[in-house]
């Protein structure tokens, strides 16, 4: 089994209205040092081991469904785990 963690964030040049709102809330809490807040998505996938190349499979999942690459960047960590 694999445990896959997928992180999706808006691309750097894409305005993040949620991040901007949270940033100003942090400022109003007196955390004035906060310079930038970007909000993204985090997903955990548990994937069975198959003949398929896990890295290629996850990449395809990200490109075709999990991220919209017009506005989002993605990265992922794959960890092999022993099923209980």
């Amino acid at each position, binding site marked *: 089994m694999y445990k896959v963690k997928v992180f999706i964030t*808006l691309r750097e040049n*894409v*305005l993040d*209205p*949620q991040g901007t*709102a949270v940033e100003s809330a942090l400022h109003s809490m007196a955390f004035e040092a906060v310079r930038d807040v970007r909000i993204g998505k985090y997903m955990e996938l548990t994937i069975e081991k198959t003949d398929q190349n896990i890295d290629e499979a996850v990449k395809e999942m990200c490109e075709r*469904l*999990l991220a*919209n690459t*017009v*506005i989002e960047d993605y990265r992922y960590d794959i960890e092999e785990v022993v099923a209980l």
Partner: protein
Amino acid sequence: MKFAVIVFPGSNCDIDMFHAIQDELGEEVEYVPHTADSLEGFDAILLPGGFSYGDYLRTGAIARFSSVMAEVVKAADSGVPILGVCNGFQILLEAGLLPGAMRKNRDLAFICKQTQLKVENNTTTFTTGYENGETITLPIAHGEGNYYCDEETFLRLKENNQIAFTYHMNNPNGSLENIAGIVNENGNVLGMMPHPERAVDKLLGSEDGLKLFQSIVRNWRESYVVTA
């Protein structure tokens, strides 16, 4: 002329769309479920607004994998007029039938109100009933209508005259260059955030949307009936 209204799980403007076509436009219309594997016999395809698949992941992201969408893509390639409104627009973007992507509204609020639009291109199959530069009133109702594309794509949209509608005076959602609706390069696929189907009778506050549907019918008749 026969229209298809595609019904996804979570569509909620399908009935408005059906009403607009049957009762106000007076043309034939049928609901088609998201599981359909053929769109044969339909002369135009309408993707209604709503919250397909609960907007899980991203608006339109899951709907684009519905089996009917393969048929929509086929129909788009063969020149059938396809109109996606609101969630329908989001699905067209996710399916790659139109360029760009949707972000959350600039002010993060769901906005439901009448908006003023400017007709930027009255040469598309959907807009010939309007004057170029004409201001029309259509309602919007969306949380993610903040259209975005990269600069290269925007220049291409501009160059090919693919921007059909822009917000006039006041941009409600922060969309790039006030874009409210765009067509594909061939001009047969239109995606727009405002709802023409909710503006087909004075009782609804505006009837400016009816001309859009009338344009589709008139242009279809001209190319398929008059010349046949």
